[in-house]
């Protein structure tokens, strides 16, 4: 099964929020200096599912990312985890593309790769939390999609996909080639292997430009964006915490019970 995994480079979400700065003018979140960006954790789980499928069915995993030359690091991270190849999609015209521009760019690169059975994307990116690029790529390519995939089996040119729902799960059958967005619930992604790290270090990562993939200049960049940020602000803390003062944890528990009764919470 030949797979393409789309990954995004994001500011490290593990960095405490207080360390981020918000630039109200450019509507950007500025991470602290010296903290390298990481592979979007949701995409890392999509890669994990792809690696499990590769173990089960064989095939090749190609990782795609749109960004600057610096985005090579997320492709190398994916290769160190077990992906076979990767490409960075970078062009000055791609700057400030919205989700539709990004999906157009990724879809053009996917067409160029051509030979694939399955595309996997994370359910959303940890920066803007939209979760729309995968579904839009599927529409652009006119291929079937199942969102929030938890597990996938392959059988006879079709896939059986288990999708997480709010109250349980669904099982879909769909023809290939196809797209899935991957649920967070697939579990923790594997760590890079020693041989993977060596492989990634040696690998030359190609960079494809707008011309290389035949991207339509009218569909990418800031000019094509369908929406823009009118504001960006840090979330306010709405509550003020009253700490129960007590000599022992035992006493604190008792006092908490009394407090809950006093405020009518129970």
């Amino acid at each position: 099964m030949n797979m393409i995994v789309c990954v995004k480079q994001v500011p490290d979400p593990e960095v405490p929020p207080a360390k981020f700065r918000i630039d109200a003018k450019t509507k950007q979140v500025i991470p602290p200096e010296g903290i390298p960006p990481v592979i979007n954790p949701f995409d890392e789980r999509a890669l994990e599912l792809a690696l499990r499928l590769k173990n089960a069915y064989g095939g090749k995993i190609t990782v795609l990312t749109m960004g600057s030359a610096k985005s090579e690091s997320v492709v190398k991270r994916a290769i160190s985890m077990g992906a076979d190849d990767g490409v960075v999609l970078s062009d000055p015209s791609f700057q400030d593309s919205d989700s539709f521009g990004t999906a157009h760019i990724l879809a053009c690169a996917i067409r160029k790769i051509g030979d694939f059975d399955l595309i996997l994307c994370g359910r959303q990116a940890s920066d803007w939390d939209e979760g729309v690029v995968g579904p839009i790529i599927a529409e652009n390519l006119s291929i079937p999609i199942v969102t929030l995939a938890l597990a996938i089996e392959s059988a006879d040119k079709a896939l059986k996909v288990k999708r997480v729902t709010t109250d349980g799960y669904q099982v879909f059958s769909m023809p290939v080639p196809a797209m899935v967005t991957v649920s967070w619930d697939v579990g923790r992604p594997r760590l890079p292997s020693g041989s993977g790290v060596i492989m990634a270090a040696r690998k030359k990562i190609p960079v494809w430009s707008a011309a290389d993939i035949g991207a339509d200049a009218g569909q990418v960049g800031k000019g094509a964006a369908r929406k823009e940020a009118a504001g960006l602000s840090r979330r306010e803390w709405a509550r003020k915490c009253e700490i129960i003062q007590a000599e022992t944890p035992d006493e604190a528990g008792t006092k908490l019970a009394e407090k809950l009764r006093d405020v009518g919470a129970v």
Partner: protein
Amino acid sequence: MSEKILIFGEVAEGKVTTVTKEILTIGRELANQTGEPLSVLLIGENIEGAAKDAVSMGGDNVYIANGPSIAKAHPDLYLAIVAEACKQLSPSIILFSHTDMGRDLAPRLAARLKASVTMDCIKLSLDENTKALLLSKPVYGGNAVAVWTSKPGTTQIATIRPRSAAPAESDPSRQGKVTPLAVSVGPSSVKGEVLETVVEEVQGIRLEDAKVVIAGGGGIGGVEGFAILEELASLLGGTVGVTRVPCDEGWKPLSMEIGQTGRIVSPNLYIAVGVSGAPQHMTGCSSSKLLVAINRDPDANIFKEADLGVVGDYKKVLPSLIERCRSLKM
């Protein structure tokens, strides 16, 4: 026909769902501000009763398209029906609930209609000067809130996070029109099929319905630690939920997760035990009426988010809490 604001309503067992009532509240407020009618699209069979309810809850024009119930439908089929309905009705704002179906349909519909899309919004408003629609949504795992606006003339699609508004109340005296909508959708619009839909039975109270939620995080330390949380929950007539860590560690099933990738709850009382207070978790519980935190770490983020806090080991705090609750007959 041109309809300004169109709500995609969800129907379960012949009734509009709670989240649909919530977006009826939001859509009605918006329609009152713009002075435009509020339209609602419902898909199903024999759902005239739900359509009348949608009128009584704020809809001016309710359209019924024939189709399978949402629980059984393939999203491709719903997408084709909604896209066809939008062609006929030409709405400029389309609102979905941020549900399984809503978040599946919204981006794909946006691609088809060349519309903009904003997911998981918590507030809709109009710009005071330009009257442009402003969509507020949490970003960066809930650490910040972005406000989005679309270029003039762009059709705008949004999904609304559950619990962002109170459900619309029914006013039987409200007048509105219920119209069947003939939508023809070819079989080729569905790629693949739904083999199975499984609703996992919840033991006890559903998290979303619980008035009291006791949430356990990584600080619980293992599956056995949850026994005392369950004891407290059952004493207070509530139920137990968890953060991401207990799911990732396999202590508790995914169905119990509260947060960005789990459930959104708003109980009267939320007691977070051994929960660090990561924004992606707080996203799922921040609208709780009273939020109580019990954590050993006085610097834990949860204390910035809570109304009441106890700094201490839950293993020592909860037994006396339970005992005092019992003696107070709470």
